[in-house]
């Protein structure tokens, strides 16, 4: 049985308003949806960033003086939830995935365009609802982890709205995941083999597997939690005979894979960017693929490393220590491969390249603290302290957010046909890199020396270091200004980029920039060597 792509074509023409209006419509075009994800995610990033600034202002002094205490906890919860579920996950998966995957597999759209649009349109309402809960009776205030019994005993309306919106966002994420898997496996252009796909496809395949396998567990858990809150059942309420630790297991069964949902796509994106700007093939394609799959498998069996102090039995602690440590191996392989990709290249030092290299350096640091945290005896001391805060910001901000910016510099010409300014880009990178390290490096010391996380007040001896950290945060806030100015200037009157400013070989560049509605005027090209850079390659290609 076959269905025709022509049917999709009709849909497009029927359903698409023209011009900018289409970005506010239920468009089925994967490129429009990708941009919708990106812009929407970025707006939420600005909101989340504002909350972070408020948090850092509060922490500039040891007393709780800037925000009321419960508001502080609400900001903390909103910040975490927004950054994870409304910025990182939708952008590295939804935005780049939707824009790039159909190009990479040689398709004209995603496998299920309608499902795709539904997945996107779940996001703005749930995000707005989440933020609106602050203005009703106060937002949730039990952190993004929503550990019971605290989440059961804090004011209920905020917590319930939090649960509903995370459920909707999880649903959106699952729909997206199904779509990506189907697109990559089933929608490949005839003649294109799996092992010829650009690395980002593999990353998205792995990520989507994690999404499909783990997000439903979070959904189930949150449903049980909402029963505890609304119907007074006792799943996680010890007063009614429930078990708090079961929640933690179920939660982390999702939320550890979730950290890979946030970072695997970034691994994929950087694998696209580095070869283009260093004019070299991606080093070790096959090992990269295996290490992604290795991370997927291992990522599912390490969750209890978040619970080393929760009274888990010794055998469990040992198992999860070993399993977690071993994740460093496939992760390490990828980093060595990237450095080897740079090695011997002809590297253009531009904003995209700088952000990617910043990513490598930051992520290596975060990975090292990660392996340390995986050791039970080490973790016992620093769990739930600023050391952990520093660790995951090195990973999530220093890693993923750096790659998001790198990707924006790389693919902006593709999407708009205009170049972004290099000068402003490099200024943006410099301020971000310095600000980021200034903000988060000192936090390792804070955690080791006795500052717990999620506090509005702290021991005055930590004030100086906290102020350094706050200055770093200020720099990070400032760093968005050159970025926004850059975007604004380029959109207004940027230099025309031509179709393929980087002379890249991956399929999305082998069409006009911006691409036509159905991606290619004629047939999709068959790209069997997406990384066929290198001088001797031209020789090889000529011989065929």
């Amino acid at each position: 049985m076959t269905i025709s792509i022509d049917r999709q074509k009709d849909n497009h023409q029927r359903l698409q308003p023209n011009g900018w209006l289409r970005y506010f419509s239920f468009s089925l075009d994967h490129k429009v949806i990708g941009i919708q994800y990106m812009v929407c995610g970025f707006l939420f990033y600005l909101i989340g960033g504002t909350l972070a600034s408020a948090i850092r202002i509060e922490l500039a002094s040891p007393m709780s003086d800037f925000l009321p205490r419960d508001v502080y906890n609400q900001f903390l919860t909103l910040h975490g939830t927004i950054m994870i579920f409304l910025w990182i996950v939708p952008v590295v998966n939804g935005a780049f995935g939707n824009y790039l995957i159909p190009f990479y597999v040689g398709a004209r759209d995603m496998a299920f365009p309608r499902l795709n649009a539904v997945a996107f349109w779940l996001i703005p309402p749930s995000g707005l609802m989440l933020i609106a809960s602050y203005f009703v009776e106060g937002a949730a205030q039990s952190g993004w982890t929503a550990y019971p019994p605290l989440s059961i005993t804090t004011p209920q309306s905020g917590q319930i709205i939090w649960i509903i919106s995370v459920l909707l966002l999880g649903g959106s994420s699952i729909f997206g995941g199904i779509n990506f898997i189907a697109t990559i496996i089933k929608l490949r252009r005839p003649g294109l083999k799996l092992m010829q796909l650009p690395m980002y496809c593999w990353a998205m395949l792995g990520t989507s597997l994690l999404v499909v396998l783990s997000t439903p567990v979070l959904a189930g858990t949150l449903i049980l939690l909402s029963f505890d809150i609304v119907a007074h059942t006792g799943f996680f309420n010890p007063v009614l005979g429930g078990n708090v630790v079961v929640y933690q297991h179920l939660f982390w069964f999702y939320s550890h894979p979730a950290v890979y949902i946030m970072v695997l796509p970034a691994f994929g994106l950087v694998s696209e960017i580095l070869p283009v700007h260093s004019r070299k093939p991606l080093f070790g394609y096959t090992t990269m693929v295996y290490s992604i799959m290795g991370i997927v498998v291992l990522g599912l069996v390490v969750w209890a490393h978040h619970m080393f102090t929760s009274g888990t039995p010794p055998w469990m602690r040992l198992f999860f220590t070993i399993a977690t440590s071993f994740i460093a191996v496939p992760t390490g392989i990828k980093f060595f491969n990237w450095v080897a990709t740079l090695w011997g290249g002809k590297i253009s030092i531009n904003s995209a390249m700088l952000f990617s290299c910043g990513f490598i350096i930051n992520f290596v640091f975060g990975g090292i603290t990660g392996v340390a945290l995986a050791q039970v005896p080490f973790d016992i001391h620093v769990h739930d302290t600023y050391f952990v805060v520093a660790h995951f910001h090195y990973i999530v901000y220093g890693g993923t957010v750096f790659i998001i910016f790198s990707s924006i510099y790389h693919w902006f010409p593709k999407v708009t046909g205009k170049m972004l300014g290099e000068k402003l880009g490099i200024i943006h990178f410099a301020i971000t890199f310095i600000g980021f390290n200034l903000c988060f490096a000192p936090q390792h010391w804070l955690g080791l020396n006795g500052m717990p996380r999620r506090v509005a007040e702290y021991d005055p001896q930590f004030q100086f270091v906290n102020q350094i950290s706050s200055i770093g945060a200020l720099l990070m806030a400032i760093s968005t200004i050159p970025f926004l100015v850059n975007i604004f200037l380029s959109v207004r009157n940027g230099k025309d980029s031509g179709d393929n400013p980087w002379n890249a070989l991956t399929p999305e560049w082998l069409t006009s920039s911006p691409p036509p509605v159905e991606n290619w005027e004629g047939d999709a090209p068959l790209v069997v060597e997406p990384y066929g850079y290198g001088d001797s390659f031209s020789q090889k290609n000529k011989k065929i």
Partner: protein
Amino acid sequence: MLNKNIYLILIISCVFGISFWIGFNVNLLPAEASINAPIYDELFKILFVIGLIIFIGMTLAVIYSLFKFKRRKDEIGDGIALEGNLSLEIIWTLIPSIIVLIIGIYSYNIYDRMGGMKELNHSHEMMSSNNEKIWAGISQSSNNDIANNNLSVEVSAMQFAFLFNYPKGEFISGELHVPVNNKVSMRMESKDVIHAFWVPEFRIKQDIIPGQPTILNFTPTKIGKYPIICAELCGPYHGGMRASIIVEDESDYKDWFNKNKKTEVDL
């Protein structure tokens, strides 16, 4: 060629040297005040050194490539068409695996020395009084662990305070007083939400989970006053949920105990 190798070896030994120097000379940790602390710090130093070597090495490699392989102006063409190198890739799979394995075994050893693998000591009166299930925090055995002379304290955590009950003297205190070099055995219970008992100078932390009475042992080794910090988000005043632990010598402790006790007992 020979020249190149010499440079490489020189750089690698520099990286190692610097890492070892920093690892053993830069102290990022607070004072060591329990028998757990030196064991912890030993692990920390090793991990710190290994981490530094990898981090400095990788950073140098990235920065070096950026300078060395930078595209010069009006240079065209591509880099070398190197798609991979199996033996290299095997090397950088195997070496990290071995390092990780060694770290794992070593940290198991540390864990064991901290008492993580020890079965709970059920002979203690306080714990065996009823058949209730008890959880165990990581807790160390000690050489000067005088049998049956353990000091036992009942800790209850609530929003937003710790209370310390001394069952032998039948009194409750807001400060934890303990004699130095004695093993202290605490039974911790939460009245409402999850809290955590953390003393940075002792390098111990244990969540106090409602419905799960938990035993935590430690042996302080240094006289002084240290903070007890709640490390698990427990509500608006979580940041203010702190108490103090006062480690004092035996006689000071006895004085304090006798001053507070409600029943006539001899220590």
